[in-house]
């Protein structure tokens, strides 16, 4: 791909967004163009996927000088892990656009496009300053979309998430600069490229621990890990559908991605040394958030906790230091993004039609909207991890990996089969199935456009559950590369 396909994927949405902003077009034209942009990006991502070679190394590299006096470069590349997340984004976003079709203004679509640029940029960056740039750039449109189109106490929530995550990122920025300076002292030239920074040998153990902690803090807030999660509830609850969709299904996963992409190669020894703590923090989060979700009345808050619970499990997987756990975590990133993204879209519709977020005020939806219920059920089963969905494959692999890491952790992590099931089925009973005598006559069943938006997700959830091998082979070499070359673990 000579024309810089990754750059096109990153900047096309931004270019479209700014053009739309400047041109006097209506919101209807905006949404059509936004949708078409998403489709074009899906096609481009498909090209990348098709041409991706089965190795664990960076491919599709692009390299341009940016701020050459400080060795800051515009440097892109993808490996197996970023590839599957790219495919995930490229598939999810057109589906989401089909769902967000009606009643959104121009600003909404522009923000969505800008978020997409931030996300893909974060995903491709191989230079830490560039990464930081996109990482923060991703946040601004989120700030706008929640602040302008959210519900409830939206201004407070949007300021809370922004300040909270920026605070975390600032620590990361300090660490990045520190690494850059250390590189300069050791090698006599400036560089912030990941491949250069991993060669630093002069850092003392104490320095390394501080830097490790700085990076981890930024990512832990984004994921969020316990106890950095309190921004989550209000943000999810008050976000508009598009915002919460992107936050839960993609942006939260970028925190995990950041750990694997940067923390692991920069501090491989510490990564291995602290792995037990993070495995247990992940499991603790799984149980803690799972139990907290049980008694939530606000449906979006319940899913916020549910999301955090699964992300804890993903973190357990990436720190399990073996192929099963890491592949499972990569798979769960995908599985969970689809299921939780789909669920937030469905709930968004519920909220849009009925204006209700409280589980107690719902009920009797199944009778009114059978297609809605079927899709809701399939997403729910994926979250619960029923065999036949990709949720099962990933949860099983993570349990396997965790058991390989430590038997006791493995056994406790198997509790995941109970956690999500207990609140999800309760929710399904109260909010969807049983007739509570509430007025839900405004609820409409899915129309053709919405069905088309949901079908790819359903198809992938089941396809990846029944025939996982076909989806695995592109990630496998990357995971092996992480384990053997970076962490130096022989299997």
């Amino acid at each position, binding site marked *: 791909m000579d024309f810089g396909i990754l750059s096109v994927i990153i900047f096309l949405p931004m270019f479209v967004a700014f053009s739309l902003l400047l041109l006097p077009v209506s919101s209807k034209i905006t949404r059509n163009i936004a949708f078409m942009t998403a489709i074009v990006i899906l096609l481009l991502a498909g090209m990348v996927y098709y041409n991706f070679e089965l190795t664990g190394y960076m491919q599709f590299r692009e390299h341009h000088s940016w701020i050459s006096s400080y060795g800051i470069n515009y440097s892109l590349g993808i490996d197996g892990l970023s590839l599957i997340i790219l495919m995930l984004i490229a598939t999810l976003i057109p589906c989401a656009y089909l769902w967000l079709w009606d009643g959104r203004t121009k600003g909404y679509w522009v923000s969505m496009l800008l978020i997409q640029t931030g996300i893909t940029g974060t995903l491709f960056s191989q230079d830490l300053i560039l990464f930081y740039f996109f990482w923060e750039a991703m946040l601004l449109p989120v700030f706008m979309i929640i602040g302008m189109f959210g519900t409830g106490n939206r201004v407070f929530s949007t300021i809370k998430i922004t*300040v*909270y995550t920026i605070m975390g990122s600032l620590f990361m920025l300090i660490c990045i600069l520190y690494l850059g300076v250390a590189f300069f002292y050791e090698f006599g030239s400036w560089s912030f490229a990941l491949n250069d920074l991993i060669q630093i040998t002069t850092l003392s153990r104490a320095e390394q621990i501080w830097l490790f902690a700085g990076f981890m803090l930024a990512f832990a807030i984004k994921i969020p890990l316990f*106890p950095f*999660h*309190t*921004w989550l*509830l209000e943000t999810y609850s008050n976000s508009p559908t598009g915002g919460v969709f992107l936050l839960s299904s993609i942006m939260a996963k970028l925190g995990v991605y950041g750990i694997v992409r940067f923390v692991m190669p920069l501090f491989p020894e510490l990564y291995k040394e602290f792995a037990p703590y993070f495995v247990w923090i992940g499991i603790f989060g799984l149980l*803690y958030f799972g*139990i*907290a*979700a*049980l*008694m939530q009345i606000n449906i979006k808050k319940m899913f916020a*906790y549910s999301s955090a619970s699964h992300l804890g499990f993903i973190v357990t997987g990436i720190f399990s230091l*073996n*192929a*099963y756990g890491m592949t499972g975590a990569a798979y769960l990133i995908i599985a969970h993004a689809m299921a939780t993204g789909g669920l937030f879209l469905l709930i968004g519709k519920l909220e849009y039609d009925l204006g209700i977020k409280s589980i107690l005020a719902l009920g*009797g939806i*199944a*009778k009114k909207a*059978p*297609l809605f219920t*079927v899709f809701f059920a399939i997403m729910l*089963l994926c979250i619960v991890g*029923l*065999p036949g969905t990709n949720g*099962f*494959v990933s949860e*099983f*692999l993570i*349990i*396997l990996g965790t*058991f*390989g890491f430590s*038997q006791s952790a*493995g*056994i406790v992590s*198997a*509790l995941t*089969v*109970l956690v999500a*099931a*207990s609140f999800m*089925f309760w929710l*399904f*009973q*109260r909010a969807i*199935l*049983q*007739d*509570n005598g509430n007025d839900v006559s405004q609820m409409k*069943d899915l129309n053709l456009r919405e069905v088309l938006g949901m079908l790819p997700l359903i198809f992938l959830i089941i396809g990846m559950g029944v*025939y*996982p*091998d076909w989806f*695995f*082979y592109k990630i*496998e070499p990357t995971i*092996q590369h992480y384990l053997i070359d970076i962490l130096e673990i022989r*299997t």
Partner: protein
Amino acid sequence: MSNFLLAWIVLIPFISSFIIGVMYLYSIKVARVPNFVFSLFGLSAPLLSFLLGFSFFLQMIGNDEIFLYKAYRWLEIDGYDIDMGFMADKLSIFMVLFITFVGWLIHIYASGYMKDDKGYGKFFFYFNFFLASMLLLVLGHGPIIMFMGWEGVGFSSYLLISYYYEDGENVKAGNKAFIANRVGDFGFIVAMVTMFYYAGSNGFDFLNLKESLLSVPVPVLTFIGFSLFVGAIGKSAQIPLFVWLPDAMAGPTPVSALIHAATMVTAGVYMVARFHFLYDLIPHVGLFIAYVGAISALFAAIIATKQTDIKKILAYSTMSQLGYMFIAVGLGGYSVGIFHVFTHAFFKALLFMGAGAVIVALHHEQNIFKMGGMKKKTPLVYFTMLIATLAISGIPPFAGFFSKDEILLTAFSSGEYLLWIIGVFTAILTAYYMFRLLFVVFYGKNYKEDKKLHFLPKSMTTPLVILAIGSILAGFIGIPELLGGENLIGSWLGNWKNSSLHVTHSTEIILMVINIFAALLGIFIAYKKFYMYDMKEVPIFTGIVWNKFYIDEIYDTLIVHKIKQLSIFISYKIDVHFIDKIVMGLSRGFIRSGHYIAKMQNANTRFYAFTMLIGISVISTYLIMVLR
């Protein structure tokens, strides 16, 4: 060569359920699809699977061939393959045959029972989906594939229990079933993962595990055996995870017949038999299993004596009979346990379907004390129910006699006399509560209303007759050698019994006579108390047995309520009032310190001069100290 047909045994019901599901959605969204289209697909799938299964059965006669079909590589990590594979040996093909056959009969019955239901298509969609999962469970070539079916049947059971979903209670019962099953699944997964690490390196399927488990240390095997059995407890409704089964009767009656009597609940027994190579190595766990089974059998039988809901009596009786099966498989009598699974499938399905017929005839009345005199009104149902009741009570020559006799013989010959005593005592209770049901419903004089009985279609009565024949004949495949039989089932499934104790023929005869007397005693007591039962009002029961030993209430208080409290504590106390307080406190701290710092800029020249003075003195002191 024709092994790929194994996959089709499972695939056919899956495909048919998918087609029915899509057609059902079409019928409610676009245009009505007539009922016979649904039943056409719904009924042909189990029949086709049965025929396919039968063709494998024929190929197996007279040899020990095991059919294996690997459909595709499910996944590959670290150079380790896990396949999607199917295996048919004598055990699984035996299960396939009766699952599809009894399943088919129940499908026919359901096509009559559900005739006026709006969700006719949905029902067959779920039913076929269940059947497919059950067949996957039975035919899976390794624990993972088996687990897929295992969870699948749990989920379809949830769907069918909460079939009438508009009433929250039904969905609640479904949730309860799913969660209780999941507690079991937790055990299954833990066992599977442990097995994977200790014995999976040569391939993670039953044939390889059989070899590789031999080299695993006994404590690990014990752990695996226990964890697996937790799975079986959940699925087969044994103590302490049985609470879901009585509530599961909220589903339509054919569901109770198919899932909660004949097939799904026996999956736990099947699993223990399937892992016989594991349990052979750890007889102490087997003994534990047998005791859990015995206690469950007794416990359920005691509760059943006081119940009034016809379906709940049968539910507890199912739990009790499953307990018998666990006695057998726990003591190593795998073929004996499977034999009872087989006979039980016939007479219990028949009992449920007969009960369903009575319930329909009486316009959905389930309290036996509001029934009566049904012998005259529905003679066919009466006769078939009588056969089933005799069978379950263990009266020769009906099916249940042979299998129950063998189970008790296994217990006795293994030297576990306590288990044997519990078994015999439970047999008395079984005969008692079953004949109590029979006498009250069919001879009682309580039902005096002259409401016209609901018509029972042929599709409902024909399966009753077929199953009644089955309940008479099913036992003959396992006639012990003592009575001149060949014990076909024992030789079919292989000589698994590992007990070295053998009893003399005279002992065997004495035991048999004791069993028959136990059954007769139970019948006699029931006769004395309930024959021609007449009562002005529906009796009101109280007491600990009627309240099912308050197990539900105990679980609610000790577990459910505590977890709910914990949830509220976490989400409202810790998160909102502690962690978020700190986070917000930090941010307010910044704002407040900003205010303080801002106060320094107060345009007061003397204050500025004073701070300059302090600054200069600090710096000069520092310089003096450093430069000196």
